[in-house]
């Protein structure tokens, strides 16, 4: 969130951690991708269908750190990242009770069946390939948010 002082951001994140800012339920969507451009694109695609706040992470480790401090209703996860592969992040999420229920949408350039099967086996809720169509991604994300039952969008 550029332009917002870090202190304010953390303050809101802490509030958001209680899922409540001024009595309004806040939904967080975690966007994990090592490309800042892709993260911006994902946000732009999802913005029209949700009131959610976006939390970004550029590495797998950062994604896990983010998870620990802001409850997340949906994770959009890239697979090929430096320092920790997306599948490892996914396994971590599925292995911990606190995060187990969070829907994870894997968003990757790997278009082959093996990769899809591996992601689903590791616990991915949905699998979308890049390049993605913004509307299709938004529809998929919305479905997951509603199914997840946590603060669904409009």
């Amino acid at each position, binding site marked *: 969130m550029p332009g917002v002082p870090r202190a304010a951001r953390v303050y809101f*994140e802490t509030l958001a951690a209680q899922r409540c800012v001024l009595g309004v339920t806040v939904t967080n969507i975690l966007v994990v991708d090592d490309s800042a*451009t*892709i993260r911006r*694109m994902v946000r732009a695609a999802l913005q029209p269908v949700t009131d959610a706040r976006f939390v970004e992470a550029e590495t797998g480790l950062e994604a896990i750190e983010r998870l*620990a401090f802001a409850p997340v209703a949906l994770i959009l996860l890239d697979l090929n990242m430096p320092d920790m592969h997306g599948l490892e992040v996914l396994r971590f999420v599925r292995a911990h009770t606190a995060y187990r229920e969070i829907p994870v949408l894997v968003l990757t350039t790997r278009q082959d069946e093996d990769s899809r099967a591996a992601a689903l086996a590791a616990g991915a809720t949905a699998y979308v390939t*890049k390049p993605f169509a913004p509307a299709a991604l938004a529809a998929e994300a919305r479905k997951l948010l509603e199914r997840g039952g946590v603060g669904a969008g409009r």
Partner: protein
Amino acid sequence: MPGAERETGRFSDAFLDDYFAECDEHLRAIRAASLRLDAGLDAGRLEPAAVEQIFRGCHSIKGLSGMVELGEAETLAHELESYLRTLHEGAHGITRPGVDVLVDAVMELERVIVARRDRAAIPDVSAIVARVRAIAAGGAAPHVPTAAAALPAAAGRRWQAVYVPTPAMLERGVNVNSIRERLQALGTIESAVPEVAEGGRLAFTFVVALSDAEPASAEWEPDGVTWTRLANVPPARAEAPEAPAPPAAARFVRVDLARLDDLMRIIGDLVVSRARLADSLERMERHVPAAEWRAAQEHRTALDRHVRDLRQGVMRVRLIPVGDVFDRMVFVVRDLAREYGKTVRLELHGKATEIDKLLIERMMDAVLHLVRNAVAHGLESPEVRQRAGKSREGTITLRASTVGDTALIDVEDDGQGIDAAAVAARARAAGVEVPDGALDADTLLELICAPGLSTRERADRGSGRGVGMGAVRAAVQEVGGTLTLETDPGRGTRFALQLPLTLAITEAIIATVGDRTFAIPQAGVSEVLEIDPAAVRQLENNEIVPYRQGTLPLLRLSRVFGVPEAPRRARLHVFVTGRGAAAVGIAVDRIVGQKEIVVRTFADRFIKVHGVAGATELGDGRVVLILDVNALAHAGEMRGVR
């Protein structure tokens, strides 16, 4: 993908600038890694980390290109990625033809992306795609186990660093990425594992092989990191080696150059206001008590210093190391050497020299052309060199350095030098007047820069727009720089570009002619002389003065601009511009002082006046013209002053 589809507004259009900027970063990293790979191959060393980095860069470019529907880049990046994956998995080791194809493909990839940016026709990639496919499929070289397979080189001691993040630390900007970067600076990270400990606390456990003796625990503790020494056993599971830090993204922000220009403009206004303030203060001196005035003067001096620091600070933000441009030349030279059948070694000096980004970009084509000339015409073929008693391998040296407010870029080769007689003959044939006898370097430069005389023996495949030496010199002069030539038949040629470090603010000498005031940028002036008007001689239509061992043609500003001359003075002030035989003296009445000025160029082409580079505002609100000394000197030559 047909171009027509690219016309309409699409989702991805809003992200094109991000796309180009991010691709730029990836391409830079890929180029640097390719160089390491290349050098490693020559030295018989494997560079798994470099392969990994190129692979990662191609992967990112592929994903991004798909999103912006640049199919050519996506395809090419995909093929490269597939090829690198085979290396990666050790299907076969890297080979010389492999690296060559890789380098060519990366250059083509860059061309595709640049073409998209410039809205030019996208090059056809089918040929290079086929080459990448061929190299990926066949030519299996004997597999050499990569260093990655071997366990961590007996690198130092192994330590475990456990990082426990808290909201308070996140607030301070400490997060797992910054910790990882700091660890990477200390040694090699062997593994990084997140764990949820008792009580639901998250912890990251890093295993690090330190190059130094011991981590300073006290420095790490406040940031939630605790260290434990590990017994020196190999890690339980061999993790893939950590990829070299993705250019430390977290510590950098990307800034639109337009914003920096805005800042520069504001600082320019500040410089003008400061000069006005100084002027008002001068006039106030008589009316305020001495002590008060002195205090005000001190503040003014402090302000001067701060403004200067501020300007330099912002300027530094715009500076980037020339290393990037130089690295690009490595590929160009390799390509050209192959094309012309030369053996070339490229030496790079001063890669860390920092120059204004905009300036580098504007000079890129000029430097490229000089390098191209050096390979194509400067260096001899290996056989000829051998016969001449030289090494078979020619050397091209690129050198960058900064001196005060100027940046110097040299392009030097140890080839055959420029054949002055041949150039003179060609010039005469084209109807250009050429002085008899031996040509000095400056006249020679003049001739090779003359339109129509560029050595265009053959249409160079890569040269594209046909930038001649004339265009090179024009580009240098456009930014207020100078181009000089030194050539030694049989020994080599050196082109030196002398450029201003920054484009907007510069030191200038303020001088008057009659009742007019002019500003002369200091970078263009090599010397200021004070001469006795009696020493001026008349030679045909021109005036000359004795200078060093020879004479110096004199150009009176009063005559150039038709300003009435001040009554005869005891001394004449002369600026010397240009070097050697191209030197010209510019005579003014009086030198008033020296000032930091803000250069405002004329936006309107209709008021472009030869010899005037722009205008600036002095502290007293007067607008004065900034002289373009190079153009003036040139005008003098054209009128046959010499």
